[in-house]
Structures are given as structure tokens and as C-alpha cells.
């Protein structure tokens, strides 16, 4: 499935958040979106999933305009992984992942739904937590549960909003590895907003760097994550090294202009 975003604009009240954003997502591709706080990374992801309605521009899935699709239809094609767990009431891990079957499910969950969920839990290695309450497992495991829910949706496109923001380095690598593997093995695609430039460099096929609601640079990690770009977009002096594994970034100090 191919995703195209054309000239999308979005504003909260009168504050413009996204201006003229266009991008394309190919099959079996991981697209990383990086940029400072408040540049509209999360907003862009929500606009793509039509959780927010863009003011102008269009989002096309295989040339079908998303704004003409029903909510359920969108939900069968794109899965959204929020930044962290919400909710004040108890829910077990298995019930949470079963929620991902909602776009397919009648009122009662069927045996197929349960099969699908059990398979996804196994894929992410969280079967043993299935009956636990979701608030009683660690942050890394919670993040896996949220990804599992999106996978249970059987969507072709995953939209992830900073999937690693609350995780320790091991869980960061685990979660990113899982996403990358699923994308390559199942031929789906993923867009993820990321804060950590090194994770973006390592796991994204292409990177979009955003600045103040606009796309500043786009391309493979080596072409986007440059000393100049980081200085221009983040206002940070950084070292960028490359020893064959892709660039890695060592931030040094904020630039005072």
C-alpha cells in the first residue's frame, strides 16, 4: 500500500502547526520524522490517520482520498500507536490488544479475533503478560502492547508517535527492532515520529526533518542528519560520525545566535 500526503495544512485555532507538508511512503519502508518539540510531528501523524482533519491538502491511500473513507475503513488500513498508555480504568493486556480487532469485529470477539491476538502477542514476546493488568507491567512492555494492538488491526501502515519516548536503551532497541522486522517481513510500512536522532539514523530507511511546521529536509539518514541541518533545525552544535553503520550524532552544546 502506498501513502501520499499532498500539501497538508493544519492549525489549532489560529496557530498554524503544519504548512504545506507533502510526503510519500513506499511499501516496506520505515519513514522517520524528526524535529524539535512543537514542530508538528505528532500533528502530522494524527492528520494522516484523520484523527485530526487537515485544513487543506489531501491524504491518499493507493490514490483513494482518506477524507472520503469511513472511520472503520481507515482503521482497517492504518494503525495508530499513541505515545503512551492512557485510561483510568483497569484493562487486561489481552483485552487491550483485542481492541485492535474492533474495525473487524461484531459485538462479541470471535475465535478468529482471539487467534489473531494470540499470534500477535507471541510475535512480540508478551504472551506471558496476556492476563495481567496493563498498568502492572513495565513501560517497555506497555509500549509493546500498544504496538500489538496496532498489529492486531492488520493495518498496512503503522503510524507511531514516539514509540520509544519512555523506554530504557534496551527496550528502545527491542521495540525499534520489532517494528523494523515486521515492516520488512510483512511488507507493511511505518511512519514514526522520533526524538532520538541516533535511533532514527539506525532504523529509518528515510528521514524527514521538520522545522516549524514545514519539511526542512528529506532523504536517507546520511543526507539529512548533517552538522548543518542539526544546527539549523535544533540550534545545536553536534558531531556527526559515520563508521559504516550509518551516521551517529553526538550533541555538544546549544548554539547561541
Amino acid at each position, binding site marked *: 500500500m502506498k501513502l501520499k500526503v499532498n500539501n497538508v495544512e493544519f492549525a489549532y485555532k489560529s496557530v498554524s502547526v503544519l504548512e504545506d507538508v507533502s510526503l510519500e511512503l513506499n511499501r516496506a519502508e520505515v519513514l522517520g520524522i524528526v524535529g524539535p518539540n512543537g514542530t508538528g510531528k505528532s500533528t502530522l501523524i494524527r492528520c494522516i490517520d484523520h484523527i485530526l482533519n487537515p485544513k487543506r491538502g489531501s491524504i491518499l491511500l493507493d490514490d483513494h482520498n482518506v477524507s472520503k473513507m469511513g472511520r472503520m475503513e481507515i482503521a482497517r488500513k492504518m494503525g495508530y500507536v499513541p505515545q503512551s498508555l492512557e485510561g*483510568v480504568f483497569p484493562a487486561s493486556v489481552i483485552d487491550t490488544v483485542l481492541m485492535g480487532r474492533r474495525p473487524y469485529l461484531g459485538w462479541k470477539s470471535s475465535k478468529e479475533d482471539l487467534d489473531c491476538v494470540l499470534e500477535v502477542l507471541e510475535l512480540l514476546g508478551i504472551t506471558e503478560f496476556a492476563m495481567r493488568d496493563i498498568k502492572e507491567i513495565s513501560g517497555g512492555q506497555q509500549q509493546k502492547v500498544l504496538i500489538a494492538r496496532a498489529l492486531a488491526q492488520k493495518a498496512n501502515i503503522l503510524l507511531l508517535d514516539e514509540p520509544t519516548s519512555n523506554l530504557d536503551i534496551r527496550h528502545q532497541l527491542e521495540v525499534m527492532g520489532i517494528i523494523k522486522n515486521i515492516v520488512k517481513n510483512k511488507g507493511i510500512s511505518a511512519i514514526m515520529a522520533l526524538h532520538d536522532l541516533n535511533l532514527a539514523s539506525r532504523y529509518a530507511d528515510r528521514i524527514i526533518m521538520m522545522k516549524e511546521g514545514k519539511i526542512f529536509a528529506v532523504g536517507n539518514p546520511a543526507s539529512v542528519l548533517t552538522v548543518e541541518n542539526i544546527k539549523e533545525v535544533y540550534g545545536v552544535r553536534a558531531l556527526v560520525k559515520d563508521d559504516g553503520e550509518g551516521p551517529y550524532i553526538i550533541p555538544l552544546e546549544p548554539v547561541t545566535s
Partner: protein
Amino acid sequence: METKQHTLTKEEVRSQYNKLIGKKVFFIFFLLFSIILVSGISASMGSANLSIWETYSSILNRLFPAYFEPGWLADVCIWNLRLPRIFMGIVAGFGLGIAGCVTQAVLKNPLASPYTLGISSGAGFGASLAILTGTSVAGGNYLVIGNAFLFALLCSFIILGLSNRKGATPETMILAGIAMMYLFAAMTTILQYFGEAEAVKEAVFWTVGDLDRSSWPKVTIILGVLTCCLPLLMIKSPDLNLMTAGDETAASLGVNVKRTRIILMSITTLLVACIVCFTGTIGFIGLVAPHFTRIAVGGDNRFALPVSGLLGALLLTSADLVARIILAPIILPVGAITAFMGAPLFLYMIMKRKKEYW
């Protein structure tokens, strides 16, 4: 924690999951049985001093007329006084329980109750207006009731209308609800300030929830509304589950969050207004039933809604039984008894709960 070493396999999870569902279904039947039991006890208790045999021959006589010969007193007492009251307790308790569960889930707030959207203060104002000034939108016997019902709806729909303009978020609903509650309470106070002493007393008595005013037509009306509302709420219960997991998540899984929220709140408003106008404000049921429910069967609203309703019915019928016998022949207002019984139980549950959240 040592026992957790054994990791679960897929098939174990499947069987545990199915077993858990079975347990929830069993709990529903257990509650149904308890309600019948309490109702049965309640029917045989009261100031008329009927024997258990008299009670049940009177009840069974209507079902199998050929076999029993109940006394005239028993017949009047059971069929005109006790049974309407018991059934009123069941339908009102069920309605409040389920409305509380929906309201808490929709507003994502464990402190919410069916009265959060101002229904009780609206109804109180409507009733006071009718009692104190004699003016009403409806006439005859149903003057006070009709007025209470209309003002309860008015108050809630102003809140829903206002919050709908602001994106229908739980926060705006709760805040608008509090504002309207104060407004209507203040209007009631002004009315009472200028009212005659006797009329004020009557108005205050009206607002204290009780089941003294029960009758078969009233039970039928509530039952009718309940039969319309319950299926609608149950159909929406999976969507409600998604909404408690976060608005964005729900939207990404295909739910029209704003519309669902307004629909659900409108249905519960109608249901609760219908109950409150007949019984006055019976507090606590709509607050505690959902909490007990989540402790017993978890947060899945497909089960939580019916269980909360049944628990509400059980709580209210039990409270009314206590209200009738504890100081007999004086009948205490059940609205106060629910809090007397519920509060200690509730505190106990809060102190004992294992989880750090609801």
C-alpha cells in the same frame, strides 16, 4: 512473585481467557439470584405482619389462580404496596447503576455519577417550582413529576449542547455540569426562600430520594424507558471500551468519539431523568455500583454495564429493605440508607483495593 516463573503458552492464555469470561457470566447469574432472594425476603417483611405463607400464596395466586386462597389484606398489602416498591427498587437501581457506569466511562472519571450532568439539581428545581408556585408545564397528578422530568432534561441538555460546541471533551462536560448544578441549586434556594413553610418542607422531602411513591404505572414507565435504553447502551459498549483507552486511540480504531459521547450521555440522561422524577435523588448507587463492578468483573464495559445495573438493583432493594425494617413502622428515606450502608463498604473497598487506580 516466585510463582510467576512459569511462562504462559498461547493455549493456556486462551483457556484462561475463556474461563474468565465464564466467571463473568456466572457472576451475572449470581446477581440475578441475589436480587430475587432479597426481593423475596423484602416481600414478606413489613408492618402488616403477614406470614411467609400468606405472602407467597398471594404472589403465587396471581400466577396460578386456581391453587391458592390468599386473604384480602395480604393481597392488597403485597400487590399494592410491597411489590410495586420492590420492583421500583429493582428498575430504579438498575437504571442508576448502569447510568453510573456509562457516565464514569464516558467522562473517564471515577468520581462521576449519573448526577454529574446536573440531573438532580434540575429535577429538584422543577419539583420545587411546581410545589411552591403551583405552576407547571404538565397538569394533574403528574404536575410535580412532569416538571421535575422536564427541568432535569433541560439542565442536562444545556450542558451537552454547550460542551458539544467545545468538542464535547469530558472536562467541559464536567465543568459545565458543576456550573449548572450550582445555578439550579441557587434558583431552588431562592424559590424556597420565598415559599410557605409547609410547601418548602414538601419540596425538601421531594428531593430526598425514596421509594414511597412507587406504583405499577411508574414501574412500567421506567421499565419501558429501560428496555429502550439498555440495548442502545449495550451496542455502544465496545466503543465505550475504546474511548476509555483514549480519544485518539478510539478514533484511530474507527470510533466517532464526539458523536458516541453525546449519544451515550443523552441516553443516560433520559434514563436517569425518568427515574429521578419518580424517586427523587437517590445518591450513591450510581457512584459505587460501577466501582464494585470493576473490582468484580474488570473494566470491559460489555460486562461492566449489565453487572453495574444488577448491582445497583441489588444495592437499592437491599437498602430499601433495611430502610423499612430498621425503625419499623417508621420508613426511613432510602436515599439516606444507601449512603449509610454504601459509604463504609465503599471506604473498605478503597482501602483494600490492590490496584493504584480505578
